[in-house]
């Protein structure tokens, strides 16, 4: 388990995401998903950089199907950004082309 990115399940969503009190980035990932593997080290690096300021979480799609459906997430990886009040903000990032700088830009906007 990573030091900076915590894995949650749907049962933790209310507490870990909506009631976090800090900006949250939630990564929906799947197995057999090379773009998810590619995202992991970038996500980890950004999480380390913002440790203590924002929360970086990941959730396994296959094990948390209902939550994915509720949020309308149908692709992996998908990054969903939440502000301190637990409201989704900004653009969801997905697919193979997620850049470290793009994640950082959205986190900066949430912290501003």
């Amino acid at each position, binding site marked *: 388990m990573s030091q900076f990115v915590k894995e949650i399940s749907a049962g933790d969503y209310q507490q870990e995401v909506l009631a976090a009190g800090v900006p949250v980035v939630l990564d929906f990932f799947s197995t057999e998903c090379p*773009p*998810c*593997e590619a995202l992991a*080290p970038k996500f980890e690096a950004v999480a380390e950089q913002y440790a203590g300021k924002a929360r970086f979480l990941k959730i396994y*799609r296959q094990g948390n199907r209902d939550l994915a459906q509720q949020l*309308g997430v149908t692709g992996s990886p998908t990054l969903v950004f939440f502000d301190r009040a637990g409201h989704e903000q900004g653009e*969801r990032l*997905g697919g*193979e082309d997620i850049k*470290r700088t793009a994640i950082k830009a959205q986190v900066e906007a949430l912290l501003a």
Partner: protein
Amino acid sequence: MTTRYDLIIVGAGPAGLSAAIYAARARLKTLVLDESVPGGQVKTTHKVSNYPGFPEDIKGTDLAKAFSTQAERFGATIRRAVEITRHDLTGPVKSFELDEEETVEAPAVVVATGAKPRDLGVPGESKFKGRGISYCATCDGAYFEGKDIHVIGGGNSAVEESLFLTQFARSVTIIHQFDHFQAEAATAEEARSNPKIKVIWDSEPRAFSGDKGLERLTIENVKTKVTTELATDGVFVFIGYVPRTDLVKGIVPLNKWGYVETGEDMSTPVPGLFVAGDLRSKLFRQITTAVADGTIASLAAQKFVKQHARPAPAPAVAPVA
């Protein structure tokens, strides 16, 4: 911090990794950069049936791993998930800044950045990306268990991936702009005999719509001009690729479709800059042709390095003989 190499290869797909295998075996200090994990488009292909040496189908992800393992065995360094934040490819020493924090340089560079899936450019597409529209069946197929989905396209990728998607979906309807598949005959036959696959010929998508997620797909019959709205649970798009030329745009000639024009030895007008694989202007884009390009680019780059450049310091880890 700046690290010097003999050869830097951008893109760890079949072209880039073939170039790396040849360069590392020639004892060049070789670095491969990729913004993702190695494999290029191969890694998200569910199976490969036409790559010589594998009499049984091989999973794309396994072939990708075999390519990168082989390159690393000979001493090439592969940097995964790195972002090139600055680059200068025009001078005698070509440099890249990585993740805004370090610099790598070399006298020769092979750009093998390949191509990425083409967008449809249809209203609603960007809104529903990841909310019902997908470009990767191995990644997202499992989201559509028991659902009725649509696939746009009729080439090898579209038909192969439709077959893969029948494992999950209740039905797969292929929307194709022509009245026959462009896919290989063997694949097309398999699709036609699969009871879960239906085909709507002569039609193109015109719009995507829905309230929260994707719910409806509008298509137009290109012969009759009749438009139809279809209910859908998800759409997979496989309509070909566009070259990734961001690194070399403006410094090498592109053809009218945006692919890089190279010499037969993969050289460009910029000394020491070589281009290999799917971003090149050529007739056929296959794993086999990418491998050939990478091989040629690597051999030409080795010749260039020997003639023009002072070698980099010996690798810290001795390559395996």
